[in-house]
């Protein structure tokens, strides 16, 4: 129970299902996650799940899953949205500030220092040659990541409706070709892509329900 666990305030309202961690415990946890989060988002998500669901049971697995899918719909970095949402659930506004600070302090500090060090040597011929090797590698990673993002989306389209996959592929190629040849404002084009797929889904759903009722 909550009283026996170290580092917990007993919730004033006596809600034992959602014990609130104290600020310092919460900060230390996020700091540890931030410091260990080498290798991108997936590893970090796992660390968060382990810390908040497995070990401390501050969240149920389905609450975590719900939070995670909400974060996919949020602008910006998904992992930061997850951090904000969990911080809010556990301690309200102060929880958000504490969690973000904990997660970002190690990684931001290291990122800035690495860049500063790099900026000092970036004109050195060896460094320039190294960069020429790194850029194609980064592009390779970018291609892989595009595929990882696109795959579940396209798979979902394929499983719902036949035409939806075709619309997705059209949106994908049209936005690429438009940028290549006409350089339109990117934001407008992304919104157009979204609107096209959204309208198509909506029209299909409407026709489907008409067929059912009529």
């Amino acid at each position: 129970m909550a009283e026996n666990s170290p580092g917990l305030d007993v919730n004033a309202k006596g809600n034992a299902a959602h014990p609130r961690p104290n600020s310092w415990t919460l900060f230390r946890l996020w700091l540890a996650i931030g410091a260990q989060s080498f290798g991108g988002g997936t590893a970090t998500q796992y660390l968060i799940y382990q810390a908040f669901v497995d070990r401390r049971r501050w969240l149920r697995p389905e609450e975590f899953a719900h939070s995670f899918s909400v974060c996919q719909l949020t602008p910006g970095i998904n992992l930061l949205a997850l951090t904000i949402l969990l911080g809010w659930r556990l301690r309200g506004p102060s929880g958000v500030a504490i969690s973000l600070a904990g997660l970002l302090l190690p990684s931001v500090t290291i990122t800035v220092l690495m860049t500063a060090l790099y900026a000092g040597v970036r004109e050195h011929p060896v460094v320039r040659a190294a960069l020429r090797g790194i850029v194609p590698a980064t592009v390779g990673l970018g291609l892989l990541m595009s595929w990882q993002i696109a795959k579940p989306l396209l798979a979902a389209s394929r499983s719902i409706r036949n035409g939806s996959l075709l619309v997705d592929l059209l949106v994908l190629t049209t936005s690429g070709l438009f940028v290549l040849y006409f350089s339109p404002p990117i934001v407008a084009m992304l919104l157009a892509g979204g609107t096209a797929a959204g309208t198509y889904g909506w029209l299909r759903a409407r026709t489907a329900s008409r067929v059912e009722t009529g």
Partner: protein
Amino acid sequence: MDLLLYFWLLLKASLFSTGGLGNLPILHEDLLARGWATDRQFAEALAVGQISPGPSGLWVISLGYLTAGWAGSMLAVIAICLPPLAVLAVERVYRQLQNHVFVEGFIRGLSISVIGVFLVVLVRLLQANGMDGRALAITIGTIGLTLTRRLPVPVILLLAAAFGIILYR
């Protein structure tokens, strides 16, 4: 450089995208058009973002430093922390909207559009770096090595750096 406008461009790119690299196409367009960043700086920032800890989205902080110094990196931190705060509002409406076909399709279409644009930006980065057989070999090699899951990403990038030194010096 107008730092307020610079901050707005960083914020806008993050507001209209999801994921760590979704803001790349918008920033690439806005900053290059004003001459505030170069393809090389983008490539450098992306590489640092991959090697350093934390979400890969922190590459923007590196870009901030390279293009506008310490102030730029701090503005970038603020710009990437603000948009995800919308999660608190999104959470409230999520239950009502999760079965809404338009919203569902819109989000999918937006994400797919981002990928279409992203692919073009990747090719442009490759071209700016000098597209040749060596570069393509490194690209393909990286994809192959990453897919085997034998080596962590920072190690693969260090290998690419070593190949760069051998092949391009």
